[in-house]
């Protein structure tokens, strides 16, 4: 379908976050002339999510979230935004979707950008806990921020030492909270980084006065007059006025599943972000997609993937075929530390850690599978990040002996 014969066509998008909004604007850029409508259950005007656990908490005005695109751009690009509207059903035979209020919308092309929701573990008493929030939406962040800013008692327990848990710990600490992080594994960030990185972040949080505890399996929460008590299976317990749950996500695949689309750890899509139905695409956190560089299917939770798949799907729908061919990247900000990651480290067999001689705050971990550089985590070290990305992309063979030698500075030709 090339852009110029789309005047009478309708493209519907489910989900108005990073993937959905970027897709809508990309579709116009690719030349789509027909109707574009986006539906989202969230009623807040589409916003950036990464700041919600980071810079958001230092805003003076707690209602202020960063918009993904200014309001007028939706008007000038004729993108109809329907907020506070949950989609309940996709009928792929009739090519329609149904909304919660019972109305039906027809489509020629449908894009599913439903992302994910927080996973709430089955912990005894969790439903009765006071001031317990996950952190995925603006409304969660606003409630957490309001609580910390207005409550006299600021004891916070964060369940889960992943990126969101650690970023939130750093942000709430800055606001004067007393923060305890309870992590079930024997190290933080266990699912996403090497032990070297976990150790670094562990120390960083301790230095900043956050109590970070590992091997802490939370088994129950009791709420009492004066806040909550969180119990672990090693018979320890922690008092909490506020609890933040950051133990991972559940992918929003239910709509797609009910519609009979292929699901495998996410909505399965090809290199153009198309599902197994010719008229339905899926993008962002909700997808299980093929990564060309690593030659396997992956599911990612990142802005990079949401934006890149959005572009690929927009091009495909307008008949300008481009394939998804990205090296994943991600970032995290905690205190004054900037972490940047590139590549996928899964399956690594060896890591090389570098702490730069001229600046011990600047470090990097390089993940290898035999001779192949899979990924780089760079702490206060954008040079390692940028070069790592180049090396991974070009599959450059790295001289590991040289890489280990911190007398050799990080430069394009240093490790040949």
């Amino acid at each position, binding site marked *: 379908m090339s852009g110029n014969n789309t005047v009478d066509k309708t493209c519907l998008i489910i989900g108005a976050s990073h993937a959905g909004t970027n897709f809508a604007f990309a579709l116009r*850029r690719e030349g789509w002339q027909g109707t574009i409508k986006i539906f989202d259950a969230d009623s807040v005007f589409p916003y950036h999510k990464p700041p919600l656990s980071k810079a958001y908490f230092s805003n003076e005005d707690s209602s202020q979230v960063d918009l993904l695109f200014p309001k007028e751009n939706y008007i000038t690009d004729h993108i109809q935004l329907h907020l506070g509207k949950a989609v309940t059903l996709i009928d792929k035979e009739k090519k329609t979707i149904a909304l919660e209020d019972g109305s039906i919308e027809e489509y020629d092309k449908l894009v599913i950008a439903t992302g994910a929701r927080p996973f709430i573990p089955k912990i005894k008493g969790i439903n009765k806990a006071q001031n317990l929030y996950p952190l995925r939406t603006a409304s969660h962040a606003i409630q957490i921020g309001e609580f910390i800013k207005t409550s006299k008692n600021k004891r916070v327990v964060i369940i889960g030492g992943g990126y969101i848990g650690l970023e939130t710990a750093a942000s709430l600490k800055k606001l004067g909270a007393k923060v305890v992080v309870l992590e079930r594994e024997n190290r933080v960030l266990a699912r996403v980084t090497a032990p070297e990185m976990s150790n670094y972040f562990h120390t960083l949080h301790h230095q900043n006065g956050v109590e970070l505890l590992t091997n802490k399996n939370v088994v129950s929460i009791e709420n009492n007059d004066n806040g909550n008590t969180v119990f672990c299976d090693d018979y320890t317990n922690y008092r909490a006025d506020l609890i933040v749950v950051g133990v991972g996500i559940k992918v929003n695949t239910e709509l797609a599943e009910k519609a009979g689309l292929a699901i495998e750890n996410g909505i399965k899509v090809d290199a153009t972000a198309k599902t197994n139905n010719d008229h339905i695409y899926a993008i962002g956190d909700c997808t299980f997609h093929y990564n060309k560089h690593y030659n396997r299917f992956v599911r990612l939770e990142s802005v990079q993937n949401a934006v890149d798949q959005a572009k690929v799907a927009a091009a495909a729908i307008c008949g300008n075929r481009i394939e998804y061919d990205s090296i994943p990247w991600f970032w995290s900000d905690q205190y004054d530390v900037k972490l940047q990651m590139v590549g996928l480290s899964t399956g690594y067999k060896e890591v090389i850690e570098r702490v730069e001689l001229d600046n011990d705050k600047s470090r990097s971990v390089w993940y290898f599978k035999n001779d192949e550089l899979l990924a780089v985590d760079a702490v206060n070290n954008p*040079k390692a990040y*940028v*070069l790592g990305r180049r090396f991974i992309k070009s599959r450059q063979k790295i001289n590991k002996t040289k890489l280990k030698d911190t007398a050799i500075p990080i430069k394009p030709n240093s490790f040949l």
Partner: protein
Amino acid sequence: MAKITFITSDEQSITVEGNSGNVMELAVKNKIKGIDGNCGGVCSCATCHVHVLPEYWDKIGAPSELENDMLEFDENISDHSRLSCQIQVTDAIDGVVLKVAK
């Protein structure tokens, strides 16, 4: 109020006006092709890279150390590279011309 001109990769020249925020935000608002601003302006992604035309370099000024480290080994760096999310829109940069990097 500052007038800023962007030259896109297909040689279109677009002049826009702004008086607050950073240059990346101004570009996104005006749908300048090639400036995505994926990290939201926290100097983490380099999807907002521009080349300042040399005659305006003094008006804009050099990058910070962190920004410089992001740019130094970028395949498309020039002598006048900047990440546009790190440039504030103020009267001081009125009239500058920025080429969108690949």
